[in-house]
């Protein structure tokens, strides 16, 4: 191949893609480092006697995790609190799934008067800061005799989460082709049966996502618990952590980090579920 002119590429031209990648990764590391360092500190601190130089753990210990097998003085059992938190989260999740899976379907599939105003209202409702409703909610709970009860928190929390969940579910239903529904009708089922046997199973990822978010929002709820729950026996984990940060004694950082980590575990576990479903958001099986 004589006479063919070769292009001379500079180092940067040859490696431009790699260099861009390296730069991107560096930026991402920089941006996420506060979060990563924060969690790293949390983990290290919870398993050590003390931290020197801000980051270096000294002497491995499980002492900070003692709340798991003995009651911390002045606080109820962690397991009772965890159970409360779990019930709160589960209650919010169940109620939200029940209502959003039906409400979202109706908003997606039926034309009825007021539909578009409901859709708009949902967005406004979600943008409404819950804290501004505090006094009103207090009165409602007071009159229903639900103050200082887990049930009260569950209902309040669920009702505030339902608008957003309905919107998400509507989105999922919108993505299911009408033909599947029609096929079900022609195959001899009623509208309700088609919803239950065909549409609902296909919308499963949507239900999972809505449900997990509902669970996590219940799990991490603090404001309502702090305001409407007065007895230690009805506390949830967020309130427990708040208690340890404490108003009336010096802070035990070892204990605080351990409880904090304990509190975060379900969130991390659930995150893996969510990410799996988030990726599967598209509906399989129907080739367009």
């Amino acid at each position, binding site marked *: 191949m004589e006479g063919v002119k070769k292009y001379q590429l500079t180092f940067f031209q040859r490696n431009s893609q790699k260099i861009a990648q390296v730069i991107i990764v560096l930026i991402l590391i920089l941006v996420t480092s506060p979060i990563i360092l924060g969690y790293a500190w949390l983990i290290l601190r919870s398993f050590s006697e003390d931290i020197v130089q801000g980051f270096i753990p000294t002497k491995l210990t499980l002492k900070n995790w003692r709340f798991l097998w003995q009651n911390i003085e002045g606080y109820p059992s962690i397991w009772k609190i965890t159970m409360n938190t779990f019930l709160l989260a589960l209650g919010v999740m169940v109620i939200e799934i029940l209502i959003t899976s039906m409400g979202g379907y109706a908003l997606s599939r039926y034309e009825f008067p007021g539909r578009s105003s409901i859709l708009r209202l949902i967005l406004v409702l979600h943008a409404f800061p819950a804290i501004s409703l505090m006094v009103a909610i207090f009165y409602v709970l007071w009159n229903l005799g639900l103050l200082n009860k887990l049930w009260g928190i569950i209902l309040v929390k669920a009702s505030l989460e339902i608008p957003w969940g309905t919107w998400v579910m509507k989105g999922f239903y919108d993505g299911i082709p009408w*033909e*599947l529904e029609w096929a079900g009708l*022609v195959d*001899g089922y009623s509208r309700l049966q088609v919803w239950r046997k065909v549409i609902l199973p*296909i919308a499963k990822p949507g239900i999972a996502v809505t449900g997990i978010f509902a669970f996590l929002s219940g799990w991490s709820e603090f404001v309502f618990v702090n305001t409407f729950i007065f007895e230690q026996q009805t506390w949830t984990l967020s309130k427990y952590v708040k208690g340890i940060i404490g108003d009336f004694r010096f802070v035990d950082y070892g204990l605080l980090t351990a409880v904090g980590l304990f509190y975060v575990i379900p969130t991390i576990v659930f995150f893996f579920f969510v990410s799996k479903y988030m990726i599967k958001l598209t509906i399989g*099986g129907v080739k367009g």
Partner: protein
Amino acid sequence: MPEIRVVNFCKYFGKVKAVDNVSFDVKDGEFVALLGPSGCGKTTTLLTLAGIYKPTAGEIYFGDELVNDVPPKYRSVGMVFQNYALYPHMNIFENIAFPLRAKKLPRDEIEKRVKEVARKLMIDQLLDRRPSQISGGQQQRVALARALVKEPAILLFDEPLSNLDAKLRMLMRAEIKHLQSELGITSVYVTHDQAEAMTMASRIAVFSMGKLVQYGTPDDVYDRPKNMFVAAFIGNPPMNFLEGFTVVGDNQKLHARRGNIRVELPKEARNRLENAPRENLVLGIRPEHIKIHFKEKENTIPGLVYVLEPLGRDLIVNVKLEDTDEIVKIFAEPGVDFEEGQKVYMEPWVDKIHLFDPQTEETLL
């Protein structure tokens, strides 16, 4: 048994008239195609036959029964959708068994019937797969099996072949036609592909903009199109249209004339054109109804060969008219060589000539 009668059927969505005053009937065991471009109302009509839409006005009868308000589950209808609409969360067996489960048939009966129809459609080795694990052609067969398994009185097809590749489409076309005639199930088949309608249906209903334009056998709509829309929609390549012709006549014969061009019209034209407009008409000739001459001749249209489109078996010659630049497509006789730019004289077959009124677009002959 079910003869479908659609009487003055209208379907409006808000102010949009999707289907406007359509009437037709389907005989027992007949295979009827609803043909038209997208948005012409054919699928709306089909979904109304299925019971998914309710007519805004008009009546739909299955046999003697008025079914306007009968929900789909009581209609004994099987349907095949364009995107197959298989249930992605069920395996193939469950997909096919789904209509039978609705009828609460005993377990072994369901199994027997699913296996039977699966064997007939050659998908019996796929029964435990998921819809996403099989090919488009196989999904098509599963959809067909699901429609057939409950032994419906009426089969409805909504463009079932348009998602398949060309080769598979030809294969399934013949297979569906064979299956339909073997089982004798009254069928309505929606398509925008005129070749599908022509090859499969015993009668074709041509739709345009929500209206039924023409309803007849494939020969009817091909040889005697009611208007320019049908003439242009059916046939590939479509009918050639030449504008601006005037009918002139002496005692012997009628001719269509434009400038120096003169074309002989069939004998029966004399009666048919008696009360019709005679000026500025559109002449229609199908590509296979033109003979090409190389020497000047009476009653021919001169032109230059513009481009050649060889199709293997056939050759389509495009001829450009010298006066108007109109292009005429012609199926040439085999064994004749052409050159681009060559002067030719086109002679239409006298009894295959169509004449349209450009205002109403209706046929005059």
